[in-house]
């Protein structure tokens, strides 16, 4: 009896080890660019796969922000969407299958049908003023007045609470108000810089201000603001939280944050409570996707990694021998199977990995699961 139990346990251990092993092989030249193009075009976005297996890649092209490819990688069409879809996901919700996207250049979120028609929008005005209107006001240095590229001195940072033709009023961190005359050379910069969004099982939409102060906003499925958490201060202390994803491998679902500035990934509850760090000391995690119990991650400084549900790194793909973080590597210098600066990533429906890069010519790589 004891021997039988030992045998069964050994078999189970071997089986679980075998099932935990994952291996991929690089699939060269997967994407066929649109007719007349040698590459897909300026990439600073995301890649996703719909339920039919079609591949969607965002590029920075006016009125053609997403290109659609078939399962075979052949170009099908471009969708008439904004040029700055820095982050997007394709999710099935009660009403159907949609693209949810953060429009970086317009500080808004859109929900679109798979044909590109927009069905819902969360405009800038729907975000809370405390984050939306946070600005830094500066003034051109006197000795640089009139120069084409003047240096500036900072005057103050705070939430813009009023503005007239002649004055700007900020609410400062200490609660006081500061009135700044809008004289020549005074300028205000700041505001939201939305980099990604995802959808929770209950339909709530999570949006991150990844190029701003890393705030995470929660809206209901109709686009009504519900709450905000994250940001640069305790307890999460985020820095350049580049993209966020709802991690449905867990019950209840969690939020997975690519805290790129800290080179780490972390989990929070959907309410924003810290669960824990998944990994640290990474090559700047920028995007992620899930399939079964696996998560693949695009690390912009030159790596694609695959992780199991326990947070163990189970594979590395396309690793650049030296760290990189630039969109400027030209096609003639691309090496088969070696990434440059991974920016977006997705599993397809069969567990194969597709990755898009921060690259001004546009590049997509694919690894097939063995």
């Amino acid at each position, binding site marked *: 009896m004891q021997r039988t139990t030992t045998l069964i346990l050994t078999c189970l251990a071997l089986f679980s080890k075998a099932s935990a092993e994952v291996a*991929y092989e690089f699939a060269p030249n997967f994407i066929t660019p649109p007719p007349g193009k040698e590459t897909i075009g300026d990439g600073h976005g995301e890649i996703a796969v719909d339920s039919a297996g079609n591949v969607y890649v965002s590029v920075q092209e006016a009125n053609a922000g997403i290109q659609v490819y078939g399962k075979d990688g052949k170009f099908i069409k471009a969708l008439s969407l904004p040029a700055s879809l820095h982050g997007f996901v394709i999710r099935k919700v009660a009403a159907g299958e949609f693209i949810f996207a953060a429009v970086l250049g317009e500080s808004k979120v859109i929900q679109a049908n798979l044909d590109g028609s927009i069905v819902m929008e969360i405009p800038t005005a729907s975000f809370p003023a405390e984050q939306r209107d946070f600005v830094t006001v500066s003034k051109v240095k006197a000795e640089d007045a009139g120069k084409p*590229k003047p240096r500036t001195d900072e005057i103050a940072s705070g939430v813009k609470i009023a503005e007239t033709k002649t004055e700007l009023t900020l609410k400062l961190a200490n609660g006081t108000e500061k009135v700044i005359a809008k004289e020549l050379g005074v300028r205000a910069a700041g505001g939201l810089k939305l980099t990604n969004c995802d959808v929770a099982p209950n339909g709530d939409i999570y949006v991150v201000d990844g190029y701003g102060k890393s705030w995470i906003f929660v809206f209901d499925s109709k686009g009504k603001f519900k709450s905000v958490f994250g940001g640069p201060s305790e307890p999460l202390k985020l820095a350049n939280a580049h993209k966020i994803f709802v991690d449905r491998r867990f019950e209840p679902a969690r939020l997975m944050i690519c805290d790129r500035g800290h080179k780490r990934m972390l989990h929070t509850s959907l309410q924003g409570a810290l669960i824990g760090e998944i990994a640290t000391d990474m090559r700047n995690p920028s995007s992620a996707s899930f399939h079964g119990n696996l998560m693949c991650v695009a690390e912009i400084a030159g790596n694609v*990694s695959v992780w199991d549900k326990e947070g163990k790194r189970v594979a590395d793909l396309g690793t*650049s021998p030296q760290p990189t973080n630039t969109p400027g590597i030209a096609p003639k210098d691309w090496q088969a199977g070696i990434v440059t600066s991974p920016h977006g990533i997705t599993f397809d429906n069969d567990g194969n990995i597709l990755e898009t890069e921060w690259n001004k010519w546009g590049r997509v790589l694919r690894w097939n699961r063995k």
Partner: protein
Amino acid sequence: MRPSSSNIQAAGGTHPFPLFAFLILLLGLPRLGFAHGYDFLSARLDLLNDGSLIELTITAEYGSNPMLPDITTATQALQEVLRIESRGQDHRLSDLAPLTLHQTTQQEGMLPPSIAHAEDGQDHQFLQAHWRWVPDIAEVAFSVPKTGLHDVLLWRSLPTGETQSMLLLSGDISKPIRIHPQQHPSQLIVWLLAAFLLIFCLVQLRKFLLATSN
């Protein structure tokens, strides 16, 4: 654990990729209307006075870099972003020589020529730190603290016109850089005395050999 070239099995066509090579390949950064500025700080290294003087020019773009929203964070970053490793110890740059900061909007000399791009018509705000140090050692390396938030592109132009560069992430240490330390006056005296002693010995040896041969 961040993957390195030694502990990672890259899937598909791995080729040798020599240190410093990747940036030589670059043609230029794009003019990204919706993107952000440089994600890294640039540190230009110059070896002056026949290699006896190290000059570093570290540049941070702030405002458009999501990690450096304002000049305050840029100032802090420049003061802490790099350390120097010598004789097995790491030092803050400011412990060895002062850092002087100044603002600029000009990009000239900030990046290797191969990746510096033409003016894009957008406003850029840079903060630069200049640092000069006369070392008394033959080899140094630069490191980014483990707790550092910023990546650093360390680069230098060689007399051949080539550019060497590498991106340092938190916890990374550059390859050792050979320098030619200036001789300390006391070292010169020691060398002169040694030379004098050697000549004296040779003269005495010659005298002895002549005497014994006669």
